[in-house]
């Protein structure tokens, strides 16, 4: 059975207010084309769960699509150590959030994926990540999708001198991954780091996969140990080449330092950010038009990975005008 649908069709499945997590990690494999579609659809009130998102969350937050987030980190690391729209949204009181750590969030996704209510971890003890809550009791009570309690400290039932922190399971309505290869019936191949894509997918009600390439089943069935999640867990598959631009996809293309600079140079300024949105999101009808807008074939060819490395060894990341 083919699960192939068009990107716009897939994005339209996400209603206002949905809980959702996106695959990838800071500068790699975010489903950006899907994110741009959500912005074009003017989705509102989205509730995001993540460990270390980057520009996928930042542009959604800036575009006013997001109401609440639970996260560990939001930035593009060396391209910008703070997500500028995330910072502004917090400082202006425009977003509801709860802070965790990466290990806590990944363990929460894992608990959801395994169908257990929580996971014990040894992290967070002594920190304000454990001691402080930003969501109020009323905010938690008003939305059953938010855990009634942020965290819980427990002594081991097997050794009263051993203390752990229980982190609550996450179940999102949607998970959207961007991967290298998929089959039309939903077999998924990730090359390189898997991040937390497995756990995020398997704790979600509806999994949508966007892929650089759609390949024949026999190709991925040849090495099943390299396939990420059971095909029956995937609901929809979209063919979206360069679907993570301006972020990298191992073995396919590198991140785009010029485009990331363009975003980050203006994103702290409301007017410049809205000009960016107008030019690259609202001003184009689809992902193909977006790819033309960011520089077309010449720019994309300049980012294509060297097969010997899986990235672009000669890519300049600094002093781009020199």
């Amino acid at each position, binding site marked *: 059975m083919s699960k192939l649908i068009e990107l716009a069709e897939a994005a339209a499945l996400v209603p206002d207010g949905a809980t959702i997590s996106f695959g990838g990690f800071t500068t790699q494999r975010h489903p950006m084309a899907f994110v741009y579609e959500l912005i074009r659809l003017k989705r509102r009130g989205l509730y995001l769960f993540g460990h270390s998102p980057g520009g996928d969350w930042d542009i959604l937050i800036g575009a006013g699509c997001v109401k609440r987030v639970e996260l560990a980190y939001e930035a593009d*690391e*060396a391209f910008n*150590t703070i997500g500028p729209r995330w*910072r502004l949204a*917090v400082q202006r009181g425009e977003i509801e959030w709860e*802070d965790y750590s990466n290990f806590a969030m990944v363990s929460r996704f894992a608990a959801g994926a395994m169908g257990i209510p929580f996971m014990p971890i040894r992290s967070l003890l002594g920190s304000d990540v454990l001691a402080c809550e930003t969501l109020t009791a009323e905010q938690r009570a008003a939305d059953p999708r938010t855990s009634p309690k942020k965290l819980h400290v427990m002594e081991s039932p097997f050794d009263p001198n051993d203390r752990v922190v229980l982190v609550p399971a996450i179940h999102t309505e949607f998970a959207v991954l961007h991967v290298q290869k998929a089959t039309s019936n939903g077999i998924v191949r990730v090359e390189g780091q*898997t991040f937390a894509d497995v756990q995020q997918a398997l704790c979600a009600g509806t999994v949508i996969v966007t892929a650089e390439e759609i390949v024949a089943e026999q190709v991925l069935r040849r090495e099943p140990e390299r396939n990420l999640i059971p095909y029956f867990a995937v609901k929809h598959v979209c063919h979206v080449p360069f679907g993570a631009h301006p972020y990298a996809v191992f073995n396919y293309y590198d991140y785009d330092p010029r485009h990331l600079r363009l975003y980050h140079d203006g994103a702290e300024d409301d007017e410049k950010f809205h000009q960016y949105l107008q030019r690259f999101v609202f001003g184009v009808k689809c992902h193909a038009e977006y790819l033309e807008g960011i520089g077309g074939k010449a720019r994309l060819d300049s980012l294509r990975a060297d097969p010997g490395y899986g990235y672009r060894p000669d890519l300049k990341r600094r002093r781009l005008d020199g």
Partner: protein
Amino acid sequence: MTDYILTELMAVTAARQIKDGEIVFAGTGLPMLGAMLAQRTHAPQCCIIFQAGTVASQLAHLPMSVGDPRAMRGAATAAGLAEVFSYVLQAGRVDVGFLGGAQIDRFGNINSTSIGPDPRHPQVRFSGSGGACDIACLAQRTIIIALHEKRRLPERVDYITSPGWLEGGDSRRRAGLIRGGPSVVVTTKGVMRFRLDTKEMYLASYHPGFTARAVAEDTGFALDIEGATETPVPTADELRILREGVDPERVFLK
């Protein structure tokens, strides 16, 4: 004397904290420079792990993030965050982790979350913990890299993102943390360590061009400077490898 810039001195000083054969959890920026330099000088058998999923990278090009495709170069294994955090970090297999932040207090507690008395209404918001809190809790020891300014080294941080020695003494153990704690702080002005009993930070060395007293004056808490010496300068070899091999694009060396 060889000419060098401050970030080079910091990268070299950080690299020298890594022993050969150690398993190193490195983050983006100076920690990567330090780990790569150590691997190419005195610690060729050190194992570089990135929290996004790679183990034992033999980096050919400096990554811009711990999830960079460049982290895949020469890696012995690649998986995801759950594998690295559970089976490597939480299990106690990481010898040394790197941390940084906006504020660091005299017990090595670090804030990378927000500035202001109420974290629900911060004056300035940062990226958040990422894996920092986990590294601070679970690595065998940590190396902290920081800008040395009075406001960045307060008596108490506004928010403990990454627990250090907490209130000093045995408070870290009492909080339930079974191992670890900060061993050294490398700043733009000097190198600090922690007293064995009180866990209070003291000045071990000041960088050339500074005095112990000047470093103490730029610190927001009373810094013990007794016995501080001058930080050893980088060797010509270290500088050459750092400039030509580790960061020829000068991504972080500036």
